[in-house]
């Protein structure tokens, strides 16, 4: 790879010449517009790509006694050998999977319903749904802790309504999932709503016209067409919920040890940066695989991208 870029001895590289010619050539307006992205490309390069390379570098190395650096895959192997760690990964995926599904089940009908409303009302509801994001996430989580605790209003309401003994919701999957659903709901509602509101109403009418019932139309037309929105919603919920630290800590009574905690533990508590980096890489790879598989489901979206 590197060899091909190197200058041939003697003559100047034709590639370099081409690049120079390209730079010198007067720009059309379109090309000028492309230059606007330069600061962003720099940000991408310096603040995204290079740091990721650093992480990768840490993941595949191990510091030696005499300050030398050794290439190794041990960090990765260790993760899979360590008792329970694969389970942690699985647990994170399980929790974030459930969260994503529940969020989707709440968000989709909401987005679907508000699409029927007048435009102004639609905007208002979307704003209302996203406004809580302005309140610190930690605070919102703590507020849930207060609501869910044995002395909280939820138990009070349950007791008053059904005469139930107070239940300690904290530390249960229910509480953790509820907290995550709450935090990530806007990230699911907005893309789905954006997508649904763009679906051409005539397609729905065409389906009805061809004899399909409303239900059939929903499953065969509306739903498949809204998959891109669902997909970006899923992306925006699945990934952060797999790694969030706040919700499990405050609503999970500390019993939830998820992959984010593990990474944090390795980096910060143990100071094992190489190991932490390796786990990060594993996590990113697993998430990408899941994302890729989810995308597979959406064939139509892929077709569109192919154009």
């Amino acid at each position, binding site marked *: 790879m590197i060899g091909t870029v190197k200058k041939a001895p003697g003559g100047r590289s034709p590639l370099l010449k081409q690049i120079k010619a390209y730079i010198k050539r007067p720009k059309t307006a379109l090309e000028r517009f492309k230059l606007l992205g330069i600061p962003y490309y720099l940000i991408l390069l310096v603040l995204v790509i290079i740091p990721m390379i650093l992480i990768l570098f840490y993941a595949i190395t191990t510091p030696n006694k005499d300050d030398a650096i050794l290439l190794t895959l041990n960090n990765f192997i260790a993760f899979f050998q360590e008792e329970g760690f694969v389970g942690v990964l699985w647990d994170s995926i399980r929790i974030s999977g459930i969260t994503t599904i529940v969020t989707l089940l709440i968000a989709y009908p909401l987005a679907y319903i508000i699409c029927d409303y007048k435009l102004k009302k639609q905007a208002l509801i979307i704003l209302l749904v996203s406004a809580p994001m302005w309140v610190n996430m930690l605070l919102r989580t703590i507020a849930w802790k207060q609501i869910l605790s044995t002395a909280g209003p939820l138990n009070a309401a349950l007791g008053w309504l059904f005469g139930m003994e107070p239940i300690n919701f904290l530390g249960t999957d229910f509480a953790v999932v509820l907290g995550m659903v709450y935090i990530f709901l806007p990230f699911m509602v907005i893309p789905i709503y954006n997508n649904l509101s763009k679906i051409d109403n005539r397609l729905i009418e*065409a389906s009805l016209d061809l004899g*399909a019932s409303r239900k059939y139309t929903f499953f065969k037309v509306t739903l498949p067409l809204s998959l891109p929105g669902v997909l970006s919603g899923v992306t925006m919920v699945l990934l952060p919920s797999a790694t969030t630290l706040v919700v499990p800590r405050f609503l999970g009574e500390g019993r939830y040890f998820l992959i984010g905690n593990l990474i944090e533990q390795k980096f910060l508590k143990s100071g094992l940066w190489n190991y932490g980096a390796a786990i990060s890489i594993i996590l990113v790879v697993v998430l990408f695989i899941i994302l890729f598989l989810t995308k597979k489901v959406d064939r139509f979206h892929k077709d569109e991208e192919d154009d």
Partner: protein
Amino acid sequence: MDGLQRHVLIELKDLTKSFGKNVILKKLNLTIYENEFVTLLGPSGCGKTTLLRIIGGFERADSGAVFFEGKDVANIPPHKRPTNTVFQKYALFPHLNVFENVAYGLRVKKMDKNVIQTKVTEMLKMVGLEGFETRSIQKLSGGQQQRIAIARALVNEPKVLLLDEPLGALDLKLRQEMQYELKRIQKETEITFIYVTHDQEEALTMSDKIVVMRDGDIHQVGTPQEIYNNPVNKYVAKFVGESNLLSGIVKGPTKVKFDGMTFECEQQGFLKDQEVDVMIRPEDVKIVALGRGKIDGTITDVIFKGTYFEIDVTTANRVYAVETTQEYPIGKEVSIRFYPDCIHLMEKI
């Protein structure tokens, strides 16, 4: 006349529809027979789409009724009506391929797989798109998409096919091709077509019956020739083709006065001294040598139109549009004349 023998398919009775304060359809009545190619012709916003949507069941009339073979269908939802629609911008399902788009209606009916296969293949053949089965909809040209939209509707063997400006988005050449194609399909399938357009050439070319609409009213219903040759009023005359329109006064059973002169005409049924609209089609105006015609004028514009020249003759009272196959130089002084049967008198509106 022959309507008596033919089977009445759809009847609209006093249909009225408003959106908010705007009355879109005004007590509209119309009878449509089996196996007819009916065109709703009218300018943008006159209510054509609204009428079609009421027939298709997508809108509900405020008052009045729609009868399908004698039965009021007010409470029948779109998916249970014997109609299918071809939407203006096709409204094909982008997530399904060509075959699945066409098969959609059949799948809804849970037809046997083999039957579906046969029917869809047949239909694709009919619209000339065999072999496109697995293509993605997005990869078809406008004309091809249009054909798929028609195939998708027709494969359900509706009693009535509703077409809302189906050719509006196509370019001229393709539009002309598709006009013939649609006419052929209608003849082959013997399905009633209700076709919406604002293009009078299209209407003339394709229809058995033209319904000229304006502002939610029907002005005239008739065959293309009736509409073109005997428009009931200035509005219809203007909408269906180029014409010279002027005001005249009836001076006798076959006499009309305009431009300060009295002309012989054929038409009758007007009172003496009644004010009427007079229509003379440009192709009916004859240019003759100066002094040989009734009105004198000067050639002020000549446009080559391929088959003919479109010529403006400016006379003392007005500019006459003339269509002729002969070219005249601009500035030439000429006379014009019309035959009595080319002067159409119409009620003022």
